[in-house]
């Protein structure tokens, strides 16, 4: 954190002094400072470590009945067994495949509709309220309907994940593109930009931070929906199926393992989104 703040000052000083090279350097420094600060920062690990200790203790001293709480070592052991003899890697792959398929469909649809709504004020007025109302629907309320339309197998699951990804994507893209500052719109008029040039050079870059907010939300929602679809729709290979299996067969170590994997993938998605955003929206930290 302190490294971050320090490089922040260096950056602004460099900017005031104007020459480009030092400023670029400062930007680069900021990047490394960030990464360095992250790997050295012990604080997030402290709470994680404490939780692990607590878990060990709870198991060891029998605070929780052992059939409800495996030892962390049991979970690691189960992982090894699953990887060498079981199907967990295949399940993970199936879950990720579903998730990515739904995510791509939902994000693409959200980008397209959001872009249209943002560009055409009239369309925004006509279709916008419906989109907003759709967003108010609790995500899981879609499950029964979608399973009727698309069935409980893969199409139904992917449709549900796509709906989940679509919602934050469409709203943020729409808002981002319709909130382009009036000064930039005026500039585009003066420079005789065509609609397409305006979209490409002004609207999209200006909306990029909001589009990324939408993408971030889409990743999280789609991941939630992936778990949900695998739990509530037909049983099929996938992490959600293993969760069901763990609870029904009372294999507590499997249950814990599947939860941990869900958490890890979610964490990876989140980190990925943040890194990508930081890279692509560099100029935005003016």
């Amino acid at each position, binding site marked *: 954190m302190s490294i971050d703040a320090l490089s922040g000052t260096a950056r602004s000083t460099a900017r005031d002094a104007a020459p480009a090279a030092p400023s670029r350097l400062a930007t680069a420094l900021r990047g490394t400072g960030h990464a360095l600060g992250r790997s050295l920062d012990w604080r997030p690990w402290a709470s994680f470590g404490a939780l692990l200790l607590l878990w060990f203790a709870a198991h060891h001293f029998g605070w929780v009945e052992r059939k409800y709480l495996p030892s962390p070592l049991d979970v690691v052991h189960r992982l090894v067994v699953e990887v060498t003899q079981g199907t967990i890697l295949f399940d993970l792959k199936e879950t990720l495949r579903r998730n990515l398929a739904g995510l791509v469909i939902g994000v693409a649809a959200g980008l397209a509709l959001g872009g249209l709504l943002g560009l055409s004020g009239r369309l925004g007025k006509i279709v916008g309220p419906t989109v907003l109302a759709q967003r108010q629907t609790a995500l899981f309320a879609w499950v029964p309907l979608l399973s009727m339309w698309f069935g409980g197998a893969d199409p139904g699951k992917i449709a549900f994940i796509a709906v989940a990804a679509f919602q934050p994507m469409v709203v943020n893209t729409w808002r981002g593109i319709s909130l382009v500052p009036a000064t930039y719109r*005026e*500039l585009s008029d003066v*420079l005789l*930009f065509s609609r397409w040039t305006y979209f490409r*050079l002004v609207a999209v870059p200006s909306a990029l931070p909001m589009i990324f907010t939408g993408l971030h939300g889409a990743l999280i929602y789609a991941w939630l929906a992936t778990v949900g679809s695998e739990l509530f729709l037909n049983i099929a290979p996938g992490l959600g199926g293993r969760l069901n299996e763990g609870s029904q067969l009372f294999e507590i170590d499997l249950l814990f393992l599947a939860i941990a994997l869900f958490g890890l993938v979610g964490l990876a998605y989140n980190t990925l989104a943040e890194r990508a955003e930081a890279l692509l929206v560099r100029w935005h930290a003016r």
Partner: protein
Amino acid sequence: MTAPLASAPALAARHPALDIRNVNKTFLVQGRPIEALAGITLTVEAGAFVSVVGASGCGKSTLLRLILGLDRDYSGEIRLDDRLVDGPGADRAIVFQEHRLLPWLTVEANVGAALLHSGLDKPARRRAVAEHLELVGLEAFAKAYPAQLSGGMAQRVAIARALANRPRFLLLDEPLGALDALTRLRLQEELKRIVASEGATAILVTHDVDEAVYLGHRIVVLHPRPGRIAAVLNVPEVARRDRSSPQFVALRDQVLELLGVVHAPAERGVGAGAETTA
């Protein structure tokens, strides 16, 4: 009025380059009409540099927006080379008070953006960008991003962008107003040189009376509420060359007086910073 035209050869057509006739502009503010411009009539010859001064709220920027064609809801006529203004066009370019560079584009891409719909092919566009960056002395910063530039440099890029398409008319909306005093003086110098070398007809809106006198061939003084022309003054060549010449000081004082700023008699010192009251 003929003296400032020396640089511009007499055009075959006798029409002024810019012809504003009896322009009135009214805004609706909370349902009530507010007169922004009243009876503006002004002609500008090709190649002339006209400064428009006035207190804030006198409709200076509104006038530029009308000339640009951004706002066509007014009465009266604005003609450019005898054609009625009916929207923005390649013959006009503007430099705003804030540089308004797109932060996600490099300096050269920002300047090049003005040429995207010019009909020029890529090599020609690249050449025009390089030429105009050289004109403002920033060829070394072609690949830099706006955030890496100082305010003065960014404004110079904005000037290059405005000139890249070789517009007949260069509109300047307080382009140096947000800069520090030293940078402003330096850029006034540059602006004068650049506009002369490009042969553009320039209209500068400013509230800095020194700037108006130093840059303009003519000064249009506006009075506020509603914005109307109080006087049109010619600037003697000497005044345009030398900020401490008696002609410069006399003209500045005359403009300040027209603007209603308290005016002490002649023994007042030379070179005091001029600011109008709002």
